[in-house]
């Protein structure tokens, strides 16, 4: 049986950074990363942006070149999946029937795309956007695709809509709630993005319920809505969130439910088992201490560093300010903080100018900003979020003054 001092499950953003941080911190034990995708760790955000559009080739989105992992003595065991964890014996079982022992385990498995539960979910031509393989399948079919139906108006669905529209496809975007981005942003931002997509030719519909995917000869040909209408489509892209990949850990007895529960040092309730990234449910100070999972590169990276430091004997608590970005058309969105739970929003700038910020307040404190083509607000707003600054909404609205001067 193979055994390494540290075993990282999942060769994604979090897993890669955990290994990098361990070596950077001078860790000399053996380290292996075990992942079920065939590729070396790569950046996921471009999958719905520059990679899908063809602007970047795969080699340009690798997190590190192959030689890097060899030089740092980080063993890559790809193309295999962990199916069970024995926390007491300190070993995991793999899909190929083998076992791998560990001193410490870092669980960094992200999540798998939530599938539709209706008929036709598995027809050919129905895709998710989570892995390179997903996007390569989409790209292969694009040549023979004119009409695309995207189900789900979250960031991934919207980014895919922007890219595919630019590639000349007819895109219909179907959102079940009354606005896009409903789970992550306020109504100002939602209506702004809805108008932008419509102006670019996307048939964007909210409050529509999907009944099923219809098909011919095993291939999707459209989406049937609850009212009976069939939206014709050669391709269906489903972007309705992920399910954290934590089954084996929970089965081994780790606490958790939607994700695996971790403490401020990224430790699960199992001995010597850490969890980081999209799959890790943690109490976040920027959400009033509420327990949640964050799906962002920031969170994957910062939790990886915390887990690595913990293994290096440095006890530091996870306390990083959340940030995120999204690129659609010529719009650069940058988010800092978490807007969930806000009780007031302030619009700084004009939507029509396509450069503005939505500032989210809770009991008068700045808790988050969504900045569209407004990098300066994003940079200066970060400090307001970190400080929980209490500022007058009228002053925040005043674009003749910079945020840092308003706070001074």
């Amino acid at each position: 049986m193979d055994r390494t001092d540290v075993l990282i499950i999942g060769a994604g953003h979090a897993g890669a950074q955990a290994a990098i941080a361990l070596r950077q911190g001078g860790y000399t034990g053996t380290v292996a990363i075990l992942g079920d995708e065939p590729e070396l760790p790569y950046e996921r955000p471009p999958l719905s942006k520059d990679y899908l559009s063809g602007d970047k080739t795969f080699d340009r989105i690798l997190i590190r070149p192959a030689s890097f992992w060899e030089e740092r003595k980080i063993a890559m065991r790809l193309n295999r999946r962990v199916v069970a964890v024995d926390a007491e014996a300190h070993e995991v079982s793999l899909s190929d029937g083998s076992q791998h022992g560990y001193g410490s385990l870092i669980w960094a498995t992200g999540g798998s795309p939530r599938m539709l539960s209706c008929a036709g979910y598995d027809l050919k031509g129905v895709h998710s956007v989570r892995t390179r393989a997903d996007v390569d399948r989409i790209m292969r079919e694009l040549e023979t695709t004119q009409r695309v139906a995207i189900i789900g108006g979250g960031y991934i669905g919207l980014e895919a809509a922007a890219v595919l529209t630019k590639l000349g496809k007819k895109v219909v975007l179907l959102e079940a709630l009354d606005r896009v981005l409903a789970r992550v942003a306020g109504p100002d931002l939602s209506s702004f993005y809805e108008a932008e997509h419509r102006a670019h030719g996307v048939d964007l519909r909210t409050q529509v319920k999907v009944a099923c995917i219809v098909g011919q000869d095993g291939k999707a040909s459209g989406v049937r809505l609850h009212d009976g209408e069939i939206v014709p489509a050669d391709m269906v892209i489903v972007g309705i969130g992920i399910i954290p990949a934590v089954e084996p850990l929970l089965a081994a007895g780790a606490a958790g439910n939607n994700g695996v529960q971790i403490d401020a040092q990224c430790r699960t309730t199992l001995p010597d088992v850490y969890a980081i990234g999209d799959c890790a449910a943690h109490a976040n100070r920027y959400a009033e201490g509420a327990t949640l999972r964050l799906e962002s590169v920031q969170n994957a990276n910062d939790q990886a560093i915390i887990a690595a430091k913990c293994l290096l004997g440095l006890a530091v608590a996870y306390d990083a300010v959340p940030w995120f970005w999204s690129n659609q058309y010529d719009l650069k969105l940058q988010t800092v903080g978490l807007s969930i739970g806000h009780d007031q929003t302030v619009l700084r700038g004009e939507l029509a100018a396509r450069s503005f910020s939505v500032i989210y307040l809770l009991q008068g404190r700045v808790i988050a900003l969504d900045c569209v083509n407004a990098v300066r607000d994003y940079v200066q707003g970060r400090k307001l979020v970190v400080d929980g600054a209490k500022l007058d909404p009228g002053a925040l609205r005043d674009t003749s003054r910079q945020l840092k001067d308003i706070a001074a």
Partner: protein
Amino acid sequence: MPTLIIKNRSGIGKTIEAASGRSLMETLREAGFDELLALCGGCCSCATCHVHVEAGALARLPKMSDDENDLLEATSSRDELSRLSCQIEVSDALEGAVITIADED
């Protein structure tokens, strides 16, 4: 194919051959410098690819955009030689330049 001298955070220099056309960030990543996080992958959204470019070479580069200038304010060690490496295209203008990876924020 300019030759660059890259200094890491411990001040140790390494000479690399850089391919023209790619960004400096991609070049540093490809050359195995692990200190550069470059979290946003080069879309000028994160400021974790901060470097200091030697004055002579800096003057030969195209001017930085407003976005890059604003984003650099997010870093704690900004000086007049600061640039975001993902916003620099490698070209012969960089021949012989000393590039220093900026301190962590």
